[in-house]
């Protein structure tokens, strides 16, 4: 610890992707929390709303699940909704569930609580997962969510989505100086983190399920290099989603591209890559490399 100077520490942390992820999470959180206060005090109104629908000037962003729910219940296609859904859907389509891990205020708060718990004891921070459920639950949650919405006739997720509630409570506090009971949901989600890391995000977030479904064939993936791996399993203990990159699960639907495993890997066997085999092909393979790839496939099989 004492061998490294302060500057060196900063330099080494700047090289890590996770420092940048935390920085982006923090700035997104500050925008979401601080914006209503700014709007209230100076009447700027350049940025309105929170992660259910966001307006930056004339750029409109509507969360895909909420937009889908209103379209399903109102049975009416409104152009502004669909235009607003373009940006997040494209983001999920190219980069996967990147909203959850790089922007979501709940992820920021649970990251923060993880750090606080890490101060108390290191075991809590890098604990083995206490409760593990089959990860497939998230699809059933999405289906039930939409079914309940259709049965009741009113969109459900719009008023209890935890990332939306964070912004809403901030706005309520800035404008009306009250905090409503719905904050219980946010606190409960953070409490569930004690059962497993990101318990809610992993199994019960319908929005995450939607984004995962859209980003099933995403372009940005974490590639696992078998030759460099030394089987230390450091990535398995660090992954907040309970995925095991060491057995090649890093490209599955459930990965949310948070780069925790990329940073921990001591031999750099895991890395972000722009997937050429996806839908969009940026590079054209020449015949030689494709031949090599097929050879590899055959030999591994």
């Amino acid at each position, binding site marked *: 610890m004492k061998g490294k100077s302060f500057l060196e520490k900063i330099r080494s942390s700047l090289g890590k992707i996770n420092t940048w992820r935390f920085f982006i999470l923090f700035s997104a959180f500050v925008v979401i929390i601080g914006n209503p206060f700014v709007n209230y005090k100076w009447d700027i109104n350049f940025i*309105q709303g929170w992660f259910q629908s966001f307006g930056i000037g004339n750029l409109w962003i509507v969360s895909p699940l909420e937009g889908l729910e209103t379209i399903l219940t109102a049975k009416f296609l409104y152009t502004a909704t669909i235009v607003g859904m373009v940006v997040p859907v494209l983001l999920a389509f190219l980069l996967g569930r990147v909203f959850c891990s790089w922007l979501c205020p709940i992820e920021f708060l649970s990251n923060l609580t993880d750090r606080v718990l890490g101060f108390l004891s290191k075991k809590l921070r890098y604990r083995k997962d206490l409760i593990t459920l089959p990860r497939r639950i998230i699809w059933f949650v999405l289906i039930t969510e939409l079914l309940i919405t259709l049965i009741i006739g009113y969109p459900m997720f719009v008023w209890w989505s935890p990332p939306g509630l964070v912004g809403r409570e901030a706005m309520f506090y800035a404008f009306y100086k009250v905090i409503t*009971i719905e904050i219980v949901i946010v606190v409960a989600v953070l*409490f569930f983190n004690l059962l497993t890391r990101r318990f809610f995000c992993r199994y019960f977030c319908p929005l995450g399920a939607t984004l995962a479904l859209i980003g099933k064939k995403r372009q940005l993936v974490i590639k696992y290099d078998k030759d460099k791996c030394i089987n230390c399993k450091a990535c398995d203990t660090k992954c907040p989603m309970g995925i095991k990159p060491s057995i090649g699960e890093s490209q599955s639907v459930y990965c949310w591209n948070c780069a925790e495993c990329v940073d921990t890997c001591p031999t750099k066997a895991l890395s972000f890559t722009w997937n050429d085999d996806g839908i969009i092909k940026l590079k054209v393979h020449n015949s030689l490399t494709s031949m090599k790839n097929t050879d590899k496939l055959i030999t591994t099989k």
Partner: protein
Amino acid sequence: MRKFTRREAIKVTLGSFLAGIFSSCDLSDLKNPKTMIKTPIKTNILRPPGAVPEEEFAKKCIRCGRCGEVCPYHCIKYFDVKSGGVFSGTPYINVMEVPCYLCMKCVYVCPTGALVPCDKDEVRMGVAVINREACVSWQQEKTGLMCKTCFNVCPFAGIAIKIDHDFRPYIVEEYCTGCGICAYSCIADQYPENNGKKAITIEPVKWKKIKKVKLEDIKKS
């Protein structure tokens, strides 16, 4: 001494937290299950301007709160679970606190078409109703007062509120937007016999009436 495991710690903290929440807040509104799905829109509690009919509103609104953040007078407020049930997070205007001044900013930021863009004079949030027994002008013989406050403050004075030959105000319902400025500034509650009751209240318009207007708007745009 018995060991205090983590599982117990979680149970105790969660339980005490939930118990604290539920014991501290007033849940009298939740006792009646009808309030959870019945619309909380009633006299003087209205939807923002340009709103689609009430049956459609909660289905279209995604509770993003952009209308309230844009509103320069902070007159748009939001229901929470206690008072709104499934309508929680939807906007409303309580005209007795702050009426709508028809700046028409909120209408242009709604992303889902719960608020449809329209002109000032096309807004039908509700209809003003004059209680002639409380109005000081209608009780001229008793009070001896001639008040024209509602006529003076109305943004469509002479069109929506008119004054008859005895200086008594009356509402032309076709042109009333229901902004509530008249109800907010009515002075009848100062008159001792009224016991703090206002002479004008805003009733939410019959939904079908609005529907006709709104459908035409949608077709236009």
